């Protein structure tokens, strides 16, 4: 009788050890999954971007970036553009002539290229090597035109500083962090496709 009780106790002990191992395994697997999930969430990269609906094109983007040449560039939403002959983002308010003469251009660095499409339409493209992100063309386009020119942080240049010096200087709170897999904030119509 005593021997049988010993066997029963041993079996209970074995069952206990087995159950303990199963629980430990389940906890381990669950913990590993949870850990990986949390790590993936924590590690999701975020980048700085300008909300074009808040940007007032004040010019701070050109001067407050830590880079010598700002990471902010003008972006052109072709879907919104009117392809005007007299583009107020390209020309001075009172141009001498509607041609690409430097005296007629609004951009201080000549970063907008004007290309004839068909009479009377012209296409305007940004030369990002020359653009410093001053936003002068953005103001011209917003004031009179369709607002197709707007500023964006270009992520091939941005250093992704933890504390963006332009964001600190932005008077309209237009800077915010966006997921790196959706790094641009396009204007409404463009975003809708």
């Amino acid at each position, binding site marked *: 009788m005593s021997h049988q009780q010993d066997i029963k106790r041993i079996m209970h002990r074995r069952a206990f050890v087995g159950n303990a191992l199963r629980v430990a395994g389940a906890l381990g697997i669950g913990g590993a999954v949870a850990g990986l999930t949390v790590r993936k969430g924590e590690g999701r990269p975020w980048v700085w971007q300008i909300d074009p609906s808040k940007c007032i*094109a004040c010019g701070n983007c050109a001067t407050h970036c830590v880079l010598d040449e700002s990471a902010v560039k003008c972006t052109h939403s072709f879907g919104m553009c009117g392809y*005007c002959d007299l583009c107020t983002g390209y020309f001075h308010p009172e141009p001498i002539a509607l041609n690409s003469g430097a005296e007629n251009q609004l951009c201080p660095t000549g970063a907008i290229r004007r290309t004839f499409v068909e009479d009377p339409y012209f296409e305007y493209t940004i030369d990002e090597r020359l653009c410093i992100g001053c936003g002068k063309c953005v103001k011209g386009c917003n004031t009179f035109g369709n607002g197709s020119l707007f500023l964006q942080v270009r992520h091939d240049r941005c250093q992704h500083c933890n504390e963006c010096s332009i964001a600190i200087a932005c008077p309209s709170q237009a800077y915010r962090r966006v997921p790196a897999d959706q790094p641009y904030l396009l204007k409404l119509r463009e975003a809708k496709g």
Partner: protein
Amino acid sequence: MAAQAKPVHLGVLIVAVVLVAIGVGAVAVWRIDWLGEHGSGLSDSFKYDLQKYQKIDPALFHYHLVAEMPIDMRDPRAIAIGLGDQILVAGDKAIYVYSPLLPGEGTGTSVSPRPLGEGPGVRAAGPTKAGRAVDSPHPNPLPEGEGTTKTISLDSEPYSLTVGNADHAFPGRIYVGMWDHVETFAPDGSHLATWSKLGILTSVACADKVVFVADAHAKVVWEFNPDGKPLGQIGRRSGSRQGPMFVVPSPYFPIAMGPDGLLRVSNPGAHRVEAFTLDGHLELAWGKPSERIEGFCGCCNPAHLAVLPDGRIVTAEKGIPRVKVYSAEGTFEGVVAGPESLSPNLAAATETREDLRLHPVSVAADSRGRILVLDPVARCVKIFVENQK
């Protein structure tokens, strides 16, 4: 003998440090450029400055503001003059019909008409209180006891509006330009018809037996009979019609019918006003691009048109908000309103809209030559009267 060092109390030291910290903090907060007014540090060549074009020589103002009618709408978009100089304002899925102004020159500074009724359908006129001059010793421009006559409900947002005059086949019929189609209403406000879909409608005008509808998407002016049957179009070269093509970069493409029987069409990309006969032949064109007062500023102007009873043309511009009067042949005559007398936000130098629709001022002229300017930002109708010569 060495001077004895004076002991510094710890409390004094802490207070001094706290005061210095507060001072530094205050200076730091004071130096924050909340509104971007301190500038970017860039030279003047990087600044976009329209100030010199926004200042208008006072001698050029040929009209003066005599009254303002607040419009109880969130988003008023269009104004028209109806039979007997009724004032119609469209917006917020409705048309408000206001009583005519007094025959005399309204001189109140503010009037407050209220539309009747809410919800669908038409509410009949009632003995509503007419607008009263507020804080003004001047008479009320609205007749006593005859304020707003009715409200016409719409299914969607209206963008343009016109009313058949006494010479029209159906005097008093209301034509409302919605986003892509026209709705018609009888003078009593009952719904008559919904016309077929077009493109992006920006303006409606009517002659005796023809209704014109400007389409910014197709860049043409459609011609219909008053029941919505298509008759033709202006702006597309075909057959005997070899007129100019319209350049419409954005949805600002106004038209207006003149007493001389010519349809005035703004060709906004060309900064011209063009006059067409009813069968679509170009009679004359005038206008030039310029930020200066005699020209049309920006890339798409004029954004609204109206015709005075004597045939002179009233133009409204966006960008630099200004309302001007030209002779029927296009000679600049004078200014009605400039940036100083319109809402500051209409001068959209820092405006950052997300869509293509920036609502500029709309204009209309009543039979007495008064110019009514719908200011969508201030949500009021500003009434201007010509200066005594």
